[in-house]
């Protein structure tokens, strides 16, 4: 697994990812069949590879009976069914499943297989067994194609409700003999995870996986990926859309409305704030000296410097670029503890800056300063309580 930034594709991400790769941002791309037909996936895969990126495909069996027209273009989608139905999958069906998996990975020239898996739930031995069967099947495909196999470890809310339950499920999940982990952690449905306890637990789970000595790809990380190299991740998956900023099954829920955000103004992602600020409504209220401090340059934000109109698409590109720049620079540092401390410093500075903004009687929308303090505390907890884990990581060659 290549160390650095991976683009997590979602709805209408494909061209954005091409642009980012063109700017040198990112080492890999994770395709989303929910948002891209099989035919287009093959075309884009080739163009991403030409740009030097590795390509993976995440079948997203997290809500296994979810389907849509795009997913329908992948023959493997005939296996999208309820967990109880999947549990009854016959050995013969598994062979067909394997054949489809092999055909897709071969056509995409994928760099590894992400084993399809259902979200882990507490007390569900049937899911443990199902994921183990799906993994064994996918592993044979990876072996046939001579590419690595990554086990999917996506922890559902019922698992992450306590440290003990989480460790118990991780004990089962990590029994799989894989070459890496594709790791997701389900959070409550909020814009960006803000609970100190849940963020700490996510980091603990990631660190536990990293201690296996196998690379960890933190899926659906988004801005929270700032913490990922601090818990020993190898790859961080980011995307422009909010539903790619954390793992939640709502992404696969039937749409409840028109969506799309209507005419909402663009959000400007600031590295210094490690959060967004509404452009131009909020940026214009901030004194120039402070405004200069929050500016983060990217090839996609020229209108902001000139106070010109800026659209949400460019805001998304700017966000991905800034995240990629930050994570790529952290990827150069191999020591997780140093990365955790670097993130703590950045978050501490962000808090100071937020305070300065508030002292100017500007209160940012979107609760954009609601999480930095708790992330900082979560990382500090991790460094203190996870000392034995960090020590063990250092033992590895």
């Amino acid at each position, binding site marked *: 697994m290549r160390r650095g930034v991976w683009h997590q594709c979602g709805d209408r991400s494909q061209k954005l990812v091409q642009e980012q790769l063109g700017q040198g941002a990112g080492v890999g791309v994770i395709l989303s069949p929910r948002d891209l037909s099989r035919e287009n996936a093959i075309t884009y895969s080739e163009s991403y590879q030409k740009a030097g990126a590795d390509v993976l495909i995440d079948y997203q069996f997290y809500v296994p009976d979810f389907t849509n027209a795009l997913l329908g273009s992948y023959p493997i989608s005939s296996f999208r069914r309820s967990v109880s139905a999947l549990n009854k999958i016959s050995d013969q069906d598994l062979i067909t499943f394997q054949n489809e998996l092999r055909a897709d990975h071969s056509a995409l020239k994928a760099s590894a297989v992400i084993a399809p898996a259902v979200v882990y739930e507490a007390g569900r031995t049937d899911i443990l067994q199902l994921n183990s069967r799906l993994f064994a099947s996918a592993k044979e495909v990876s072996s046939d194609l001579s590419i690595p196999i990554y086990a999917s470890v996506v922890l559902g809310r019922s698992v992450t409700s306590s440290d003990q339950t989480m460790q118990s499920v991780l*004990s089962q999940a990590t029994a799989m003999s894989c070459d890496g982990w594709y790791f997701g952690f389900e959070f409550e449905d909020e814009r960006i995870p803000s609970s100190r306890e849940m963020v700490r637990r996510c980091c603990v789970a990631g660190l536990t996986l990293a201690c*296996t000595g196998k690379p960890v790809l933190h899926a659906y990380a988004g801005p929270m990926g700032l913490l990922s190299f601090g818990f020993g991740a190898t790859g961080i998956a980011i995307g422009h859309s909010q539903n790619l900023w954390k793992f939640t099954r709502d992404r696969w829920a039937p749409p409840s409305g028109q969506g799309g955000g209507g005419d909402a103004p663009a959000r400007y992602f600031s590295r210094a704030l490690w959060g967004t600020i509404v452009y131009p409504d909020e940026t214009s209220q901030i004194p120039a000296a402070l405004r200069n401090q929050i500016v983060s340059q990217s090839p996609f934000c020229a209108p902001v410097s000139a106070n010109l109109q800026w659209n949400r698409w460019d805001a998304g590109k700017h966000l991905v670029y800034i995240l990629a720049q930050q994570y790529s620079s952290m990827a150069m540092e191999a020591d997780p503890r140093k990365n955790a401390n670097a993130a703590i410093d950045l978050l501490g500075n962000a808090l100071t800056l937020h305070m300065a903004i508030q002292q100017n009687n500007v209160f940012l929308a979107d609760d954009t300063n609601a999480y930095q303090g708790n992330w900082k505390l979560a990382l500090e907890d991790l460094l203190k309580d996870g000392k034995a884990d960090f020590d*063990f990581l250092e033992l590895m060659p």
Partner: protein
Amino acid sequence: MPYTVDMSAAIAKFPEYTFICPLTPSEQKAAFHVKDAAGTDLCLKLIAPHYERDRLDREIQAMQSINNPNVVKLVEYTFSSKPGDLRHYTVEEFVEGQDLQALLTFGTIWPTKRVAEFFSGVCDGLTALREKEIVHRDLKPANIRVRPDGSPVIIDFGLARHLALPDLTQTAAGAGIGTPKYFAPEQFEGTKHDIDHRTDLFALGIMLYEALTGESPFYSPAMTTRAQLQQAVCHSTVHLSKASFLGLDPKWQTLLRRLLEAERAKRPADAAQVAMILKRLGGN
């Protein structure tokens, strides 16, 4: 109770072999050091009539599938039943040397370089098992032979489990067979679903601890019940505060702490990972 067969009776039944001496028997097999007609040293194991056929088949399958210098080799398996003449036995490679049990004694502390070399060999054997999805489940000093050149060989697959196949144990628990002194917590308190390759890593951790400190992490001669040992293995952290442990280099402490974690997710991922670390610690 070990299954024993009188050597004179065995000689009468197996005239094709020259018997050298009896070896330590197990519950399922009587064992003898023999030579074949070509003068090759072998280990002849006569299988007890009560040994379940299914379990034996698994053991044979396990041994046949592995070809690794740190795992004993199966040469022959025979089951023939003629009226009045039941021949049921295995012939294995005879591993010269001695049991690790003789070298891992209370108060004996091994040099760390030797620990690293020897146990990375054990790890190589365990890695070969892992590749075939086999868990030994009874890894202990009596089941590791030490060749004259000092290299280890894992023997006795009587309790091995093939994880890809259904377990043969009928009980719901099914984890607690083997030798308690080298049990992992899941063998005391878990179910058979909790047994995996990291169960063997816990036993490896106990042996490593013994080699490095000269004492057992959990067992003490004052213990009179299995429950006391279980309590120590599953819930005690006293082994982390013993003077002999605290006197070790912090890196060795980190490795031991990890191998002896009650939760499998916190143990090393596999023996290959431990081997890499041992080679690093041993300076190889």
